[in-house]
């Protein structure tokens, strides 16, 4: 799959915006991840060309941090918090329920490209435990029964869109 010209220009622009900063690799990759949702190898090669950082090093960084992804994520990223405060309040049962209902495991994306499940290591919303977030929106005090409602909410959005 060839990169679209527009994306190519966008990535070059991101690299250019950080020129002159000391060691700008992390902010560059973070911006690309936020804007395009993933950082495949051909993007890493382009970043390497623009920044003169070897692609092996970039690959090492991309695969080290949880925030970066080599494959596209779903339109809705469901983050289930498995931090300690949520875990002792049974968040494992909640992520299990998401897995059963969507038929995928954490880190995977549904075939229709709509949902990705992620196990989050604490989002710092411990008072809301167990907490779930969908594209950054936090659902406090989640229950096992509430899981299907969350999924339906976003499925309904798609039907109405």
């Amino acid at each position: 799959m060839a990169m679209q010209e527009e994306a190519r220009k966008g990535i070059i622009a991101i690299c250019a915006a950080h020129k002159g900063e000391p060691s700008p690799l992390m902010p560059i990759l973070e911006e690309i991840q936020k804007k395009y949702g993933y950082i495949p190898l051909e993007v890493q090669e382009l970043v390497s060309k623009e920044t003169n950082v070897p692609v092996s090093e970039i690959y090492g960084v991309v695969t080290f941090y949880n925030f970066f992804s080599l494959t596209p994520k779903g339109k809705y990223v469901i983050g289930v918090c498995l931090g300690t405060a949520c875990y002792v309040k049974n968040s494992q049962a909640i992520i299990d329920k998401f897995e059963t209902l969507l038929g995928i495991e954490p880190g995977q994306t549904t075939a229709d490209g709509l949902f990705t499940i992620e196990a989050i290591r604490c989002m710092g919303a411990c008072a809301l435990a167990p907490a779930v977030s969908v594209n950054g929106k936090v659902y406090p005090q989640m229950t096992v029964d509430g899981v299907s409602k969350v999924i339906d909410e976003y499925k309904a959005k798609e039907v109405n869109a």
Partner: protein
Amino acid sequence: MDKISSANALQQDIDSCSKAFDDKIKGVGGKRAVMICGGTGCLANDSDAILKEFEKQIKEKGLEQKVSINHVGCFGFCSQGPFVKIFPEDTLYHKVKVSDVSHIVDDDLISGKVCEDLLYVDPVTHEKVVRQDDINFYKKQKRISLYGCSLINPDFLEESLGYDGFKALKKVLTEMKPQQVIDEVLASGIRGRGGAGFPTGKKWQFAANQVADQKYIVCNGDEGDPGAFMDRSILEGNPFEVIEGMMIAGYAFGASQGYFYVRAEYPVAVERLLRAMEDMRKVGLLGEHILGTDFSFDVHLREGAGAFVCGEETALLNSIEGKRGMPRPRPPFPAIKGLWGKPTCVNNVETLAQIPYIIRVGAAEYAKVGTQGSKGTKVFALGGKINNVGLVEVPMGTTLRTLIFDIGGGIPNGKKFKAIQTGGPSGGCLTEEDLDTPIDYDTLIARGSMMGSGGAIVMDEDNCMVDVAHFYMDFICSESCGKCSPCRIGTKRLLEMLTKVTNGNGTEQTLQDMKALATVIKGGSLCALGQTAANPILSTMTKFPEEYHAHVVDKKCPAHVCKKLMQYWIDPSLCKKCSKCARNCPVSCIAGVPGKEPYVINQTKCIKCGTCMAGCPFHAISKR
């Protein structure tokens, strides 16, 4: 705001902002102030919509001259949010919903009547409490790190200046030599709030002793300990305080550049920090020749990318340098050779937040609070099975009993307290017998745990300690950076052994092997992550040997958590034969005859999802 180019100009701004802030709180001119919590917990419960609704109604009802609407940082009592506070009366409303706004506007703001139904009710005395300070949760607290949080609007420099902000910066730049600042911080006795508790003044002194063309101060906001959220709330509630602390550090040991390293999971904190930095640059509080002195300083922000190990200072420095976040061998310590090879101090958010206070009140006054070896206050993030979940700032030396039962309000649903885990995945658990120990850095270590960043997760009788150890091991195993073999491979093997135990396949030998391996990992790892990786296991094995014993010998999980070692069971004498459980069961493993024969679970087919128990109207189903 105009440029602040001298100490006098800053003083004038402080004076005018203080007066404005004071007038706001005291309601001078009959104008009342509504404060709405904008912390992460309350935002998730629609506090933003509440704020907009207030603004709308104030406008519609023509109250703009009589009421100001402010969003503020975290109140700390997150389980009772969203909070709305009204000055000058100091009335606190809790669990406010968007639909309550017209009630507050009409009855309180217009008619001057307190909305009784929105007041906090003390769970013990059942009395309604009007003022925040009268709530038990707040009575034993002292706010230094959380200074100004829930009072000032973190989006405005004027608010910070109006509430003691930058007085300490002015004092050091105009009245103190750098060495005097270090001496003051040394004398205060403050130790690093990030976990290890190294004396902050000493760290600064090491860096000050180095001769270099460039030095750096780095603020560690990579709050990775699951269950801790004080750094997040401080950065969200009063970002200026932390920047000021950083500048004082920079002045003290000669750094002209500062870096914030904040988790990407904290978007609100990042946004508020960036805005604060921008506002400070505009008026010249950051940049060249601050207040017309020779001190120049600027701050940058880098976002973390989701790696727990980056909370370790040398891994963090590698991450800023655009590398994999793997720790470096120490020595050389960062104070000698840190960011880009230059002398660098890495201080935690909470540490830097306390610095302006120390300078303002003086080391002697600060040192009056706390214990012999641990001075000042510490913020704890109380979470888990506790009534009052939230952020609690208490003097060092407060007992666990005060923390859990007086401030935390005890354990919900009449359950029994079992343990409290402090120090996160690096720490350990404390039990009933530790409740009266005054908590500080040294006592916690003596009791087999550690302070860590201040996460404090309470567990009750329904939590299985082997399962909790498994949880932490799973965490550490996936967060090990892979540099040292004992940590990379050892944590994996430990996790496998623990899984054996929770599945009922472990033996006494497994437990002995676990202990032996834990010792190897401890001794053979480069950084604190590996050195402390086995702590949760060792600590639960020491404190709860009978639970491990039950798992490996009796093949039982006493708390009925480990699925392979527990069963759902229908009590035939309680079963009303309604068939609800059988209809709800996702794998159709419950059989019986409606109205005639009690229902029975086929244990070989049961997947232990718990749906039957949750749905039984007669509480006939239990775990055993």
